[in-house]
């Protein structure tokens, strides 16, 4: 196409970068890029460490009323958030009469989880993850940890939740 003897146009002198330099990555550049990625990962680890040391999760203090027993039929669920927090929770009225409360965020990728009435299981529809509604343990699927749990107390006609006691 272009004749070597032909004088380069002015714009080519203004951008003296050949096409091969812009499209090919040398091994040196790749090695430097890997080092940059390594720095990014170290920074990410620093962020995780700083966040876990400097701002540990706030503990839930006291008992919070969610609803009355009559508002929650057997097999029903009710979502709620605690005051001063944006974390969603679900209160479940199991078929055996017990009440259970869990965080409504799947421990895999934080999708909302739902109780499947009659099955005794909590389902995460995003990636087919299943949790035991009695304990919050993972039954199946990609979630790496059990669902965080709240203690449920029934006082008279009202249902209260409080922070789960640490298990030994």
């Amino acid at each position, binding site marked *: 196409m272009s004749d070597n003897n032909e004088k380069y146009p002015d714009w080519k002198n203004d951008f003296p970068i050949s096409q091969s330099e812009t499209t090919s990555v040398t091994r*040196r550049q790749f*090695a430097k890029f*890997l080092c940059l990625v390594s720095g990014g990962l170290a920074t990410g680890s620093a962020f995780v460490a700083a966040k876990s040391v400097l701002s540990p999760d706030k503990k839930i203090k006291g008992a919070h009323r969610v609803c009355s027993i009559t508002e929650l039929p057997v097999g029903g669920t009710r979502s709620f958030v605690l005051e001063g927090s944006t974390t969603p929770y679900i209160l479940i009225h199991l078929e055996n009469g017990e009440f259970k409360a869990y965080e409504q965020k799947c421990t895999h990728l934080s999708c909302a989880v739902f109780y499947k009435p009659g099955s005794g299981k909590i389902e995460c529809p995003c990636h087919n993850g299943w949790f035991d509604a009695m304990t919050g343990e993972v039954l199946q699927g990609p979630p790496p940890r059990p669902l965080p749990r709240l203690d449920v107390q029934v006082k008279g006609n009202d249902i209260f939740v409080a922070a789960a006691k640490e298990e030994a």
Partner: protein
Amino acid sequence: MSTFRRAQSQAHPNKTSTLMLAIIVLLILNVTIQIWLLYSGLNNALAHNSGIAFPAFIASLVIFIINCWLLYYLPRSRQ
């Protein structure tokens, strides 16, 4: 005048390539370990097990320093 280094480079033209490849393999290996460290640190921090995050960060930082040190040994680009 030819020097020892120049003669060596001419005698073993593949040497630069081997060295470069070895460094890149080491870098990829180190980055893989760092991904694993970040993953386990984050997962444990989310599971209220914050004791893992800080040692994972220290290990990741040490690997990053090693990676920077490895860059020093990259063969010079051909002029």
